[in-house]
């Protein structure tokens, strides 16, 4: 090993050098910090968030925590609907969800997987308070005190909480609910539900003791008290009441959530709904990705979607093929222009350059709409062709609302992105190479093909990457001129983002698109070499 080199002060030279450079590096970093921050906030984080959404599925577990647990052991292939315990759990989850209004969001989430679930949830949400009516009636029959709105609060909450509530001036949120430990031990689920109730009412600025509690609280209370041990710390009178209620409830026929739900909508009796809930109960799912490649999560593993629902794979392939076609058209049309730009005298080249850049001064939407005018069957191009006599009047060309329209308009829009890198590379190829080749005996064509063209490949590479990647993600132009046959995968992504609001699927499609672009980039690097990409000198 080489001996360590020391600086004049005896420190290792490397350390000294690093110290000297640190300040410089820090200053450089400070200089780019605003940009870095901006990119982080506006680019990296949104992308990461979108990628995360493509697998994220916490909404089911968070909205229906009890149901998900109960449903875990249900066998979807049995053909029978789940047992009463699952419905019981669903009634509790749904009661909370309805108050939080989160059941509609869950409904739309699950609706992506099974059409109809959304309306099922909304419908059920309206009737979920039927569960608990029997219990409440029985309680009130036992003692009118149970009709008091403060009955459950007084039973389950601590004296301090009640006092706090009495002292509360009604501004802001009410004091948080505080459960009596012995009640929480004896009636755990009742306490939990009441806690949800009290805190939600409190958050809205209302006093829980003056609000009617949810029927589900009575329902669960009636269930739990039958088997509950008499809590410690009750006085004799309390114990007597407790055992009275216990006996009365044991004798009461409570509401059956299963019967009520199936009565509301018979879909609750079908295994499809339950299987969907079960399949999408984990916090993370590959369902969106499966959907993106025209598959779905079946009872066991993934299976192909029905033929008439398969759209995405076709769309991906079409996007690839059309992007490729557009890129090739850009090369074919752009190469001669770039060559002219690089070889004309400066005055003419500048004028030509302005013409190349002219499209950037016009709005993309305007340019695309102009193509609509030009390309339609009664449009300018067809008129001219008919006038020349190339096309019969009754047989006008279909140039728009199909792939042709998309290819024409996209080629026009992406052409500058091909020309500019090509031009800047060609600008660096001295004309003496062509002269040298000719002086060595090469014809014009050979000189071009063997000497000039190989040197312009980095420009083609850079232009192609730009044009291909831009076109693969384009959606405005295909949307306007593409009709149904000429749209790209990005149009579906845009649809899911803004219309169907299925962001998870949009994210999954986007992630796949990103992966494909990365793959192309990697393949390009392997075949051509990314060092061979030049945007200039």
């Amino acid at each position: 090993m080489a001996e360590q080199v020391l600086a004049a002060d005896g420190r290792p030279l490397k350390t000294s050098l690093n110290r000297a450079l640190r300040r410089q590096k820090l200053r450089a970093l400070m200089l780019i910090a605003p940009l870095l921050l901006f990119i982080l906030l506006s680019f990296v984080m949104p992308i990461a968030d979108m990628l995360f959404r493509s697998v994220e599925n916490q909404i089911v577990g968070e909205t229906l925590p009890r149901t998900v647990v109960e449903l875990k052991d249900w066998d979807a292939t049995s053909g029978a609907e789940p047992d009463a315990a699952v419905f019981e759990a669903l009634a509790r989850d749904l009661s909370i969800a309805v108050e939080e209004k989160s059941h509609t969001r869950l409904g739309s989430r699950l609706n992506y997987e099974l059409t109809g679930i959304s309306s099922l949830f909304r419908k059920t949400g309206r009737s979920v308070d039927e569960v608990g009516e029997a219990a409440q009636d029985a309680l009130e029959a036992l003692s009118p005190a149970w009709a008091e709105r403060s009955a459950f609060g007084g039973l389950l909450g601590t004296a301090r909480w009640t006092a706090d509530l009495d002292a509360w001036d009604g501004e802001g949120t009410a004091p948080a609910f505080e459960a009596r430990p012995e009640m929480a031990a004896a009636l755990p689920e009742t306490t939990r539900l009441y806690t949800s109730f009290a805190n939600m009412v409190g958050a809205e600025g209302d006093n829980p003791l003056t609000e009617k509690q949810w029927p589900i609280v009575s329902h669960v209370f009636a269930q739990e008290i039958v088997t509950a041990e008499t809590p410690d710390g009750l006085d004799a009178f309390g114990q007597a009441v407790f055992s009275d209620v216990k006996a009365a409830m044991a004798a009461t026929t409570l509401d059956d959530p299963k019967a009520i739900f199936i009565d509301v909508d018979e879909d609750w009796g079908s295994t499809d709904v339950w299987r969907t809930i079960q399949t999408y109960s984990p916090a993370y799912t590959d369902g969106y990705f499966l959907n993106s490649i025209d598959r779905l999560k079946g009872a066991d593993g993934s299976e192909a979607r029905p033929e008439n629902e398969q759209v995405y794979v076709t769309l991906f392939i079409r996007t690839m093929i059309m992007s490729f076609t557009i890129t090739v058209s850009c090369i074919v049309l752009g190469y001669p222009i770039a060559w002219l730009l690089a070889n004309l005298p400066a005055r003419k080249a500048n004028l030509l350059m302005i013409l190349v850049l002219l499209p950037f001064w016009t709005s993309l939407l305007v340019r695309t709409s102009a193509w609509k005018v030009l390309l339609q069957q009664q449009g300018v191009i067809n008129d001219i062709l008919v006038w020349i006599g190339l096309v019969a009047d009754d047989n006008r060309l279909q140039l728009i609302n199909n792939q042709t329209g998309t290819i024409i308009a996209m080629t026009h829009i992406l052409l500058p992105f091909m020309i500019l890198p090509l031009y800047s590379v060609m600008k660096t190829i001295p004309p003496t190479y062509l002269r040298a080749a000719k002086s060595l005996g090469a014809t014009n064509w050979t000189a071009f093909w063997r000497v000039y063209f190989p040197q312009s490949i980095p420009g083609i590479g850079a232009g192609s990457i730009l044009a291909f990647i831009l076109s693969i993600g384009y959606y405005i132009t295909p949307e306007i001129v593409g009709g149904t046959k000429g749209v790209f995968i990005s149009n579906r992504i845009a649809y899911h983002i803004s219309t169907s609001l299925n962001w998870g699927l949009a994210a999954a499609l986007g992630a796949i698109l990103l992966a494909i672009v990365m793959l192309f980039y990697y393949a390009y690097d392997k075949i051509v070499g990314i060092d061979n990409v030049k945007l200039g000198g």
Partner: protein
Amino acid sequence: MTATASDGAFVAFERVQKSYDGENLVVKDLNLSMPKGEFLTMLGPSGSGKTTCLMMLAGFETATHGDILLDGVSINNIPPHKRGIGMVFQNYALFPHMTVAENLSFPLEVRKMGKSDREAKVKRALDMVQMGDFAGRRPAQLSGGQQQRIALSRALVFEPELVLMDEPLGALDKQLRETLQFEITNLAHSLGITTVYVTHDQTEALTMSDRVAVFDDGRIQQLAPPDELYEKPENSFVAQFIGENNTLEGVITEIRGNTCIVKLDNGDIIDAVPVNVSAVGERTKVSIRPERVEFNRERLHEDAHTLKAEVLEFIYMGDIFRTRLRVAGRDDFVVKTRNAPDQERLKPGQTIEIGWLAEDCRALDA
């Protein structure tokens, strides 16, 4: 066909004119003929038309008027790739995406030569410039001098009879340039190739060429072997352009056969050889080379005219002394003397008498 001076010449320009814009002539009435095997240099300041001439010969520019003949045949309408002229460019123009061997193989490939022939020729051409070990390298991996050697061997590999070189050594440092000058001339002579060499470096022109054509203002000012060019410049441009030169201005007062008397502007009288002056009373620029000035009165002709000179500066340059004098009212008169043991070292402020042999002093156009 009319007989011209170019009959039997290998390369000939006949009354060639060239204009790029239709208003100015870049090349005005160029006539030039070269025998086979000659090494001819076109020398001139930039914009003098020398490169344009070369490009017309190569076929990259077309003559606006006149004929360019190669081996007696007009090549005006032959495209460059059919002329079979080898060319070396200033920036080498080696194809960067090909190896050295591929570069050399290129002219042979376009001539549809077989693979084994090609390889043999490439190898021979590389050995010729001592670059045999570099066949697999890319041009970017070579130094400037190496690249120029490759460019040279590429221009020679298809065995052209005429090779054009456009300032090929312009981008190299002095020492390398001298080595390559020597190599190029040797190679050209040993292969018997006719060479047209363009440069603005007069030393290069003098040391390499059989003949030098001095260009200025679109015309050949003088076409002569190097020694004649230096010693017998035919006009004041050539005298000024080639080598160092002292100029004195005056009026012809007397012409006597091959000598004349010139009265300088300050009234001094000197002897000179009339070159392109014809009449008494004509203004003239008199040219004397710094090394031909004599200040030892004994070595001069006894009735030779002498001038008074004041030493302004004495510069010791090792092999020579360079003395700047004030002569006939001019401060830029330079004398070069050899550093010999008996050579006097002049001191600034000293006044001396200088003179020269009449044949070393040429009375040229004003």
